[in-house]
């Protein structure tokens, strides 16, 4: 059911503070993961979030860092403790994480190097929606090679788009009152079966055969009919 699917774009940017920028040559491991949670069905511009999901949490590596999304859907995560030697750098980083330049592959290539090798996992916790966790790999062999992918369907996020995950329905939908559901219930089936026996069964039997059988029975002293049986029971009362 396509309508039930919610298209979610989770745009992921890995941004590295390259040591080349740094004034000192200390090994700077600081980098940030910037992304966006979007509910396209809600707003075409992606601005604003459904009221239902205003409490969205972005979780890095199973709870190592938790952040929240801004009204425009953007979020930033800083995986490690920062040891930033340079002053000028900080403002540049902050100047950037809001602008859309980040989304161009050019800036990606430019900024992703020297990220510590490893895998990071980003999960989105939003009541009512299922988001696939996103895995971010930084290759050890090829410095600067960074990949992001959905873990659930292994779709690569080279274009930093995540879609579509399910809107979760936590309750059973109560069937509206209808005759069919009534008939389907064990009691309904009981009645149905009874009706079948009452009306259809006599028709299934060949009338000729029935007559012969009745005659045979009659020869043996009458049919022990239901009427007899019931009235008999009444009499004994």
């Amino acid at each position: 059911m396509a309508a039930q699917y919610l298209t979610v774009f989770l745009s992921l940017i890995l941004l590295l503070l390259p040591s080349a920028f740094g004034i000192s040559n200390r090994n700077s491991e600081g980098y940030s993961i910037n992304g966006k949670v979007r509910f396209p069905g809600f707003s075409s511009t992606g601005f604003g979030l459904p009221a239902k999901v205003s409490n969205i949490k972005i979780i890095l590596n199973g709870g190592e860092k938790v952040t929240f999304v801004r009204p425009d859907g953007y979020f930033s995560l800083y995986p490690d403790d920062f040891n930033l030697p340079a002053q000028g750098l900080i403002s540049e980083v902050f100047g950037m994480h809001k602008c859309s330049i980040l989304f161009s592959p050019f800036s990606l290539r430019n900024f992703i190097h020297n990220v510590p090798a490893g895998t990071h996992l980003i999960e989105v916790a939003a009541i009512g929606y299922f988001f696939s966790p996103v895995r971010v790999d930084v290759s050890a062999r090829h410095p600067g090679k960074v990949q992001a992918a959905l873990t659930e369907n292994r779709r690569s996020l080279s274009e930093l788009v995540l879609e579509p995950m399910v809107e979760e329905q936590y309750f059973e939908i109560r069937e509206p009152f209808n005759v069919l559901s009534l008939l389907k219930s064990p009691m309904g089936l009981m009645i149905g079966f009874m009706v079948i026996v009452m009306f259809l069964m006599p028709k299934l039997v060949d009338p000729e055969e029935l007559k012969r059988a009745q005659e045979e029975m009659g020869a043996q002293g009458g049919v022990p009919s239901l009427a007899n049986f019931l009235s008999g029971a009444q009499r004994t009362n």
Partner: protein
Amino acid sequence: MNMAIRVYLLLFIVLSYSYTAFSLYEDQVGLMDWHQQYIGKVKHAVFHTHKAARKRVVVSTEENVISSLDLRHGDIFWRHVLAPTDVIDQIDIALGKYVITLSSGGSILRAWNLPDGQMVWESTLLGPNASKPLLLVPANFKVDRENVMFIYGNGFIHAISSIDGEFIWKKELASEGINIQQLIYTDGSDTISAVGFVGTHRFGAYILDVKSGELLKYKSMEFTDGFSGDLSLVTDDTAVAIDSIGTSLVTIQFHDGLISFHQTLLSHLIQDFRRAAVISPSNIPGAFILETDNSVTLIKVISRGELKVVEELGHATAVSDALFLPGGQQAFALVQHRDGKILLTVKLDSDDGTSNLLEETIHLDNQRGKVQKVFINTYVRVDRSNGFRVLIVMEDDSLFLLQQGEIVWSREDGLASIVDVKPVVLPVEKDGVSVAKVENNLFEWLKGHLLKLKGTLMIATTPDDVAAIQKMRLLSSGKSKMTRDRNGFRKLLIVLTRAGKLFALHTGDGRIVWSRLLRTLRKSETCQSPRGISLHQWQDPHHHALDQNPSVLIVGRCGDSLDSAGLLSIVDAYTGEERNHMEPVHSIVHIIPLSFTDSLEQRLHLLLDANRRAHLYPRTAEALDIFQRESGNIYWYSAETEEGTLRGHSVHKNCVLEEADNFCFDSRDLWSIVFPSESEKIAATATRSLNEVVHTQAKVTEDQEVMYKYVSKNLLFLATVAPKDVGPIGSVTPDESYLIAYLIDTVTGRILHRVTHHGSVGPVHAVFSENWVVYHYFNLRAHRYEMSVIEIYDQARAENKDVLKLVLGTHNLTSPITAFSRPEVSTKSQSYFFAHSLKTMAVTLTAKGITSKQVLLGTIGDQVLALDKRFLDPRRTVNPTQAEKEEGIIPLTDSLSIIPQSYVTHTLKVEGLRGIVTVPAKLESTTLVFVYGTDLFFTRLAPSRTYDSLTEDFSYALLLITIGALVIAIFITWVWSEKKELQEKWR
């Protein structure tokens, strides 16, 4: 006919068969579950009572919650729970519409929209070294028409725009090694000062240009006696501190870069001054509050650093910050305890001394302890005078709003920090106590039943009707009664909080039946920082001693280290009275409830101390007698994560101490397993729950084979990971990571099973039940979480399926089973992918163990998912045969699918989820689930549906209709039959 029956049966089976075991309709919410939201112990509070907007107070708490509370009722407007590592340092309100939080040691600054709690912006303040986080939000200071706030964190001072969190300027101040203590900005000035200590003997002050952050001046001055503690700011150019030996107060004046010190001996100010004076963090301009062992004094700074005692405040336990009143005056509140009541005083502080503006006594129940914090706010009364409302935080973490000598509202926020939970059964309903309520009159009765009928036929559409039906269902279910019910749904949950308070919650509606601040767990001379560790069932009368109420044992510790003295207390579970408590005893490392009880049905407990001695409780001759009889069969293990060893122990002989102690025993090491520290590190252990019942030991497979479960109380699941994998998920590569799972017999130390998962890392969560263990870990190769199941079967009894053998008695079923015999076991295991990170894991428990199990997963999103054990069955195959399908084996998929309807918390979140407790109900199909974190959630689960009772939504109407229809049909057929017979006879 045969055909018809077959069709009918088939239909019946098809229709009644369904996969989902747990599911709820939306209108059933609240019928058997309840959810309570808490915030935790309040650290900071900022009132927002301007204009016509809704009056609220914004608080941050020790549970890392930032929340906006309704000042009228104490309800939560909105709330956010930050990560446990993201500790909130400071909060404030900027621009009258944003709540500003500074967290993670001054590293993260966030702004939240005041009305709805939506995060507006977030900035990260980076810097090389940790420092005291400071937040200063000037009321109206603008740079280029932007409101600016100042933050000091990680050695940098930042000027940040309030509207969008953009940096305006920043400056490193830590270069001189200065420890900045205060930021000072006077309204209207064009400089901002940052003052602090350089080392312990030097005071330093920076003066910066407020617009550009340019350093205008830096002055520092040596003080020979040195400083200790924090610097308290008194006015914009005066601060006080205590000298390094703690005998005198130092007044520091800094004006225009000129620093001067003035020293005053404390003994001159306070008469019987002994030691240990602290400057209270309360912020009262022009004055400060000095707390010593026996007094609280308000001291004013007069010209040139001279100090003057203004007032002795008696034994005030808490003092608020100063509040500016419209007339340029300031007031502050202080709270004292007197005769079990709270005395609240609001003092007006003006140039000519102080006067009491308000003095009120408020009666609080005596289970609250002392007042910890006071926050004051003012409002304008009808007669234009100032009224005051005061928010107080008590020792048990509860929160009160006081106004006009009354408690306006209170919140039990201690329940946000639950340490342990124990269920207790309620008393049996006594004769003569009639609970049945007679309906008021016939009309009411009829109306009620009409509504009920509407509900059952699902034609109740108006919200009023639905609400009325809900209410009626609640009433009729009688679920909040204080007596035992036939199904065992009603119980008491005894809950221990971090503040040392014990609560009894009713499972029916979650209300607090009683609460008690434990004397044992309160701060005392002998125990400076007590904290509760765990709860244990001490006495649970079932057969004997039925006149006794059940009781629980509370175990605590005097400090954080394992070898600190232990605390014990026994509390009556029905009344909350402390029956018995023990002064600090030996250290307590581990508590083993034994399976023996004495004649009063008190359970024997073995408490292990840091010296590996075992202490027996209760300390009675009878208990000792029982214990000595059984001591040969008592074994335990200890897993030391640091050393990487697993050891098995048993009781040896009485300890040799200076004082003879019959109840103390030395332990003996039986076996040990050493995991090489360079290759393995213990990540998790799991054992079976002690009160788990296993119904059947045998399992019949689809091909009529019998498999015997290896059910042993002594099995331990242990997982080790590569030692490199101590950091987060990304810290190791797949090639160098592995996870090894062990099944170990804790009596003999024998490793029954060992399996390695290459490329997998922790954190590992595991549950052990019956003969299977389920564990959750991260697979680095696949970059997904994985769950594995191991089932263990007894091979030694595998040939016991010959009926002849059973009849002739040559089987080995009756031969004694000893844990020392070498078991022949076989294992089956399987792994599946799973989407979510987990916080905790549990398994459902039922009374007799007949019902199938569900694994309860506390996900990272603070929800609880119930996963059928059928999904975690190692016999699952991709294409199950017809026979296997009939047995209920689900086709194998590589990942465990998440059915949203099986979230037991449905649309709710249990924020800050920490633990899941399952309790069997008396009704076999049902298990009670209590989930705790910052929130509490309770529900009832039926893993295989309620097969032993009718569900609450059972349609009685339909049953009646069916019976009616059948009766009518019988009569119709009778009439027909009679008519036919008559015709037959006429013919």
